[in-house]
C-alpha cells in the first residue's frame, strides 16, 4: 500500500526532526534565561561539547544514561561557573569570555573524549506505554520518545511559568532590563545573574549530553557541530520568548533534517542554501524585531551584555 509507506516516511521524518530539535531546545532555553538576566554567554557551544564529552564518559563508566546526563549537566554548569566568575566577579567583557569558553570547551572535550572514541553505549531508553505507543503514526511520536524529549518540553513550560508567573522571574527580568534600578531596589544583581548563568550552563550541558546519550550512542570529537551557535541564534530568533523558542527550535530542527531530504528528492535546491536559511532568517528576524523596539514585538533585555559593577 503506497499510502502507508508514505505515512512511515513522514513518521520517520517527524521523529528525526524531534530528535534534531531537542538538543537545540535544551541549550537555547537555558541561554534564554541567561540572556533574560542581562548576560550574553557566547560559550554555549563550549558548554554543550563539554556536556557531550563528560556525559558520554559518565554513561560509559556507570552504564547509566541518568548518570551520564547528570555528568553532562555538571560539566556544563562547571564551564558556566568559570564564565560567571570572570564576567560577574571580575567584570570581564562577556563577548571575549564567551568565545574563550567555547575554545576551551572544544579543546578540553577533545582531551576528555579521546579515550572514548570508538566505544559504544546503550542509548537512552524510549518510553513504551502499552496500547498508546502502538497507536499508528502518532503513537511513537507522542508516547515513544526518550526522557530528554519530554524533559525539554517540561523545561520550557517551567521556564515560561518562572519568567511570567513568579515573583523570582519578575526580578530576573528586572535585573536583565535595568541592572542599576534592580540594584537600587536592593536585589542582588550579580548573585541572580550567577544563578542564571549556572542554570544556562546546566541546560547547555544537558543538551550536549543528549547527543552521545540518545542521538547517536557514541562520542565523536566536535560532535555538537555548531549547535551551540544555533541555540544562540534561536534565542534571538524567538525574541527572548519561551513559546516562540519551541517553535523556532523545531523549525531549525526541521530545516536541518529537510536539507538532508531535499537532495534525495532532487528538487535542485543546493543543500547549502537550505542549511544557511535558519541563519539568514535569524538576521532578518533580528532586523525586524529591532526596528519595532519598544513596541510589543521585542523583548530584548535592555542590559544584555553590559558589565555591571555595584557601587556601594
Amino acid at each position, binding site marked *: 500500500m503506497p499510502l502507508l509507506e508514505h505515512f512511515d516516511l513522514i513518521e520517520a521524518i517527524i521523529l528525526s526532526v524531534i530528535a534534531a530539535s531537542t538538543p537545540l531546545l535544551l541549550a537555547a532555553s537555558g541561554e534564554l534565561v541567561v540572556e533574560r538576566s542581562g548576560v*550574553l554567554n*557566547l560559550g554555549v557551544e*563550549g558548554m554543550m561539547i563539554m556536556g557531550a564529552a563528560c556525559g558520554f564518559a559518565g554513561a560509559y563508566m556507570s552504564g547509566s544514561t541518568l548518570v551520564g546526563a547528570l555528568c553532562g549537566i555538571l560539566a556544563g554548569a562547571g564551564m558556566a561557573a*568559570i564564565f560567571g566568575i*570572570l564576567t560577574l*566577579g*571580575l*567584570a*570581564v*567583557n562577556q*563577548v*571575549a*569570555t564567551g*568565545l*574563550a*569558553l567555547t*575554545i*576551551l*570547551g*572544544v*579543546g*578540553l*572535550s*577533545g*582531551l576528555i573524549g*579521546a579515550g572514548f572514541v570508538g566505544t559504544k553505549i546503550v542509548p537512552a531508553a524510549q518510553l513504551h506505554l502499552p496500547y498508546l505507543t502502538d497507536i499508528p503514526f502518532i503513537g511513537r511520536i507522542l508516547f515513544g520518545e526518550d526522557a530528554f524529549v519530554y524533559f525539554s518540553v517540561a523545561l520550557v513550560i517551567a521556564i515560561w511559568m518562572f519568567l511570567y508567573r513568579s515573583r523570582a522571574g519578575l526580578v530576573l527580568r528586572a535585573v536583565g532590563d535595568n541592572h542599576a534600578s534592580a540594584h537600587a531596589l536592593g536585589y542582588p544583581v550579580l548573585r541572580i545573574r550567577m544563578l542564571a548563568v549556572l542554570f544556562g550552563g546546566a541546560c547547555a550541558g544537558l543538551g550536549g549530553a543528549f547527543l552521545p546519550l540518545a542521538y547517536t550512542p557514541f562520542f565523536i*570529537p566536535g560532535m555538537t557541530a*555548531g549547535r551551540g*551557535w544555533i541555540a*544562540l*541564534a534561536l534565542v*534571538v530568533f524567538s525574541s527572548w520568548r519561551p513559546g516562540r523558542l519551541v517553535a523556532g527550535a523545531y523549525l531549525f530542527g526541521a530545516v536541518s533534517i529537510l536539507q538532508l531530504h531535499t537532495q534525495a528528492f532532487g528538487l535542485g535546491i*543546493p543543500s*547549502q*542554501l537550505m*542549511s*544557511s536559511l535558519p*541563519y*539568514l532568517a*535569524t*538576521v532578518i528576524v*533580528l*532586523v525586524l524585531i*529591532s*526596528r519595532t*523596539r519598544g513596541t510589543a514585538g521585542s523583548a*530584548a533585555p535592555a542590559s*544584555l*551584555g553590559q558589565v555591571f*559593577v*555595584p557601587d*556601594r
Partner: protein
Amino acid sequence: MQLVLERRPERSAVIAIASPLIAVALTIVTFAALFAIMGKDPLVAIYVYFIEPLTDPFTLQEIAVKATPLVMIAVGLALCYIANIWNIGAEGQFIVGAVCGSWLAVRTNGTDVGHWVLPAMLVLGALGGALYALIPAICRVYFGASEILTSLMLVYVANYGMDYLVRGPWRDPQGLNFPTTAAFDPAASIPTLFEGGRMHVGSIITLIVVMLATVLLGRTIRGFEIRVVGAAPRAARFSGFNADRLVLLTFAISGALAGLAGIIEVAGPIGHLDPGVSSNLGFTAIIVAFLGRLNPGGILIAGLFLALTFIGGEGAQISLKVPLDVTKVFQGILLFYVLACDSLIVYRIRLLRSVRKVAHAAS
C-alpha cells in the same frame, strides 16, 4: 566575608604593563600542571611547545606564515573593539574575501593574462570582506540590530556559500571529485620571500598594516575618535563625533583586513580554495586582539606567540603524542587569564569582612 570589585581612581600603570606577563606566566604554570596530570614531563612539554619551534629556520617560517592572517585580522578587530563595536564575524569576512579573490583566480586559470591578476585579487578580497562586514554594520546603524549576533550568523552563511561554490560550479574537473578548485596559476599566487621557503609577501603586508594602524590610532583625529567613542560615548556625542559613521567605518576596515587575510591565505600558503581554508582563523584572531591588548604592536607580538603555540602543538602531537586539542585548551586558558588580569588594571579586589557591618557604620 565577601570579595567585591572596586573601581580604581585611575588605571594602574604597573598592572597595565605586568598584566600580560602575569597572564602568560599563570597560563604556563596551569599548562605544566595539565601535562603533569596527563603523565608527561612538564619541562619537556614547555620546551617542545615554546622553545623547540624557535630553534629551526623551517618552523620559524611556519610561525610567520601562521601569524600573518591572525595579526592582520586582529588589527582590524581591535579597531572595532576599542570603539566598543563588536565584530565577531571576521571568520565570515575572511571567507568572503577568499571567495571574491578566488573568483578571479578561477576565471583566469590557465590563461596567461598578465601580472595584474594578483593585485586585482587582493583588491577584490579586501572589497568583498568590507562589503560583507557592512551588512551587520548597516543592520545596526539603520535598524538597531545587535551586530554581535548578525555578524556571527553571517559566518555560517559565508561558510555554506563557499561550500556550495567549491562543491559545485568552481570544482576542479581534474580534482578526483574532491571539493576544491584547481590550483592557482603562478600569476595568481603570492610570491614567497625566500627560494624554497614558505614565508610569503603577505607577512610584509601585515607589517605595513600594523604600522598604518599604529599611526591611525595614535596620530590621527579619526583614531582619537575611535578611542573616545569607546571610552566615553557620551563625551563623544557632545563633541559631535558621529558614532553611526564610526560603526560603518570600523566594520568596513576590519572586514577589508579579514578579507585581505583570506585571499592572501588562499593565494599564498594554500594555493587553492577548499572548505578548510579558514580553520577558525577569524575566531582565533579575537584571542589575538585581546591578548595584544587591542594595540597593533601588542597584537603583532600576541599573533607571533599564538602562532608559536600552534606550531609547538603540531610538534608536540608528534614527539609527545598529545592531541592537537591541547593547543586549544592552552589558548582558552590564556585568554581567560589575560581577561582576568586586564580587569585588575581598572578594578581592585577588596575583601569585605561583613557587608552588614559596613552598612551599619555608614548609616
